[in-house]
């Protein structure tokens, strides 16, 4: 789980009700549809940073645990985060994009074969996600929506590979094929 998701995840849960560290760990796991492995140490270190920034405070300790609660400043910060839309980076920096673009630059790589290997690998993962979705309970919204996120992103990768394939196929000339062989 990223520091950012952890930070706002904790604020979201604490805006509902005060809670102690372990409750927050299980609450985050539930909210994420079981997709994020949550390290309880990361929960506590993030809580300390939130406390330092004045976004949460520690309630009086009871015998066996300490509850945290959100401050007015914390609520303002959480509202600001939900209100600010996420925008994707302008330049894709993932390995798939890099591999395909570099393959175009290379004379030694058969780009269409590379695109097909990549397509098969992503479909194979998509099939696994879809099996998971087929087996999920209809009311497990967090899990279904998390799987949708994985599926639609992988689908977008396949569409991009298809588009690359189309461009390479159109560009290909008999002489270009000889250069590669």
């Amino acid at each position, binding site marked *: 789980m990223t520091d950012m998701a952890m930070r706002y995840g904790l604020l979201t849960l604490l805006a509902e009700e005060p809670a102690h560290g372990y409750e927050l760990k*299980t609450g985050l*796991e*539930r909210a994420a*549809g*079981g*997709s994020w*492995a949550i390290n309880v140490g990361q929960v506590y270190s993030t809580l300390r940073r939130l406390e330092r920034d004045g976004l949460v405070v520690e309630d009086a300790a009871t015998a066996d645990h300490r509850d945290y609660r959100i401050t007015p400043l914390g609520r303002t910060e959480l509202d600001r985060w939900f209100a600010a839309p996420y925008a994707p980076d302008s330049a894709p920096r993932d390995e798939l994009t890099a591999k395909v673009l570099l393959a175009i630059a290379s004379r030694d790589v058969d780009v*269409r074969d590379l695109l*097909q*290997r990549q*397509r*098969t*690998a*992503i*479909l*194979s*993962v*998509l*099939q*696994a*996600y*879809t*099996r*998971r979705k*087929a087996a*999920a*309970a209809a009311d*497990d919204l967090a*899990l279904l929506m*998390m*799987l949708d996120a994985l*599926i*639609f992103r*992988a*689908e977008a990768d*396949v*569409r991009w590979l*298809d588009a690359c*394939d*189309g461009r390479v*196929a159109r560009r290909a000339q008999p002489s270009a094929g000889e250069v590669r062989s």
Partner: protein
Amino acid sequence: MSEMQASGSAAAVELRGVGRVYGSGHTQVVALQPTDLSVRHGELVAVMGPSGSGKSTLLAIVGGLDRPSTGRVMVEGNDLGGLDSTGLALLRRRTVGYVFQELNLLAGLTASENVSLPLELEGVGGGPARDAAQAALSRVGLSELGDRFPDDLSGGEQQRVAIARAIVGSRRVLLTDEPTGALDSVNGELVMRLLRAHCDAGGAGLLVTHDAAHAAWADRVVFLRDGRIVDESRPASIPDMPEPIGSAA
């Protein structure tokens, strides 16, 4: 599962060296190179590939809508090469169901009448045909809407009627070409769940699609390029696949 076992090891669909060439001489176009492919009972196989890769040709040949130039096509034990046009028409009514992007529901017939039509063409009486139509509509979750006309149904409901018509009676082989058409993602997923359920219940499905998220409902995804199968994918094993909360051992 029991149905799968009952049908033995014979594939529902079996292609051996099936190729299709249009035209001849200088203008000859190879739509499909000699291809082997089988679909077992209980299995959903997706075919993906760019336009012109041969996937629709493949589907038309399996459905008896087109004849191969070479090779042998077996569908539920019938050798399609040995069937004349009457035999192929019978096969399409008795053995094979289609779902296309274009719904082709008849606007003047109710949902139930659309679904029972293939049986009535086959000579099944009105009562049994209606019962079978009702059973098929209930399998697609539309048991209450049989009396509606297509225009009074949503796009998703119309497509489910088309699926009911394709699986009505004893037909088990389901051939589909972009069956989710212009449906939104929730209705598209519902259609895919129905195709999956049909195969899980012992049917066999062949799905042609551009859409990776739909192809991913299949047990195998076959990739065509230039009329040739170039690769095939099966579900990956993902060790850290999320589990529902509380289900962990």
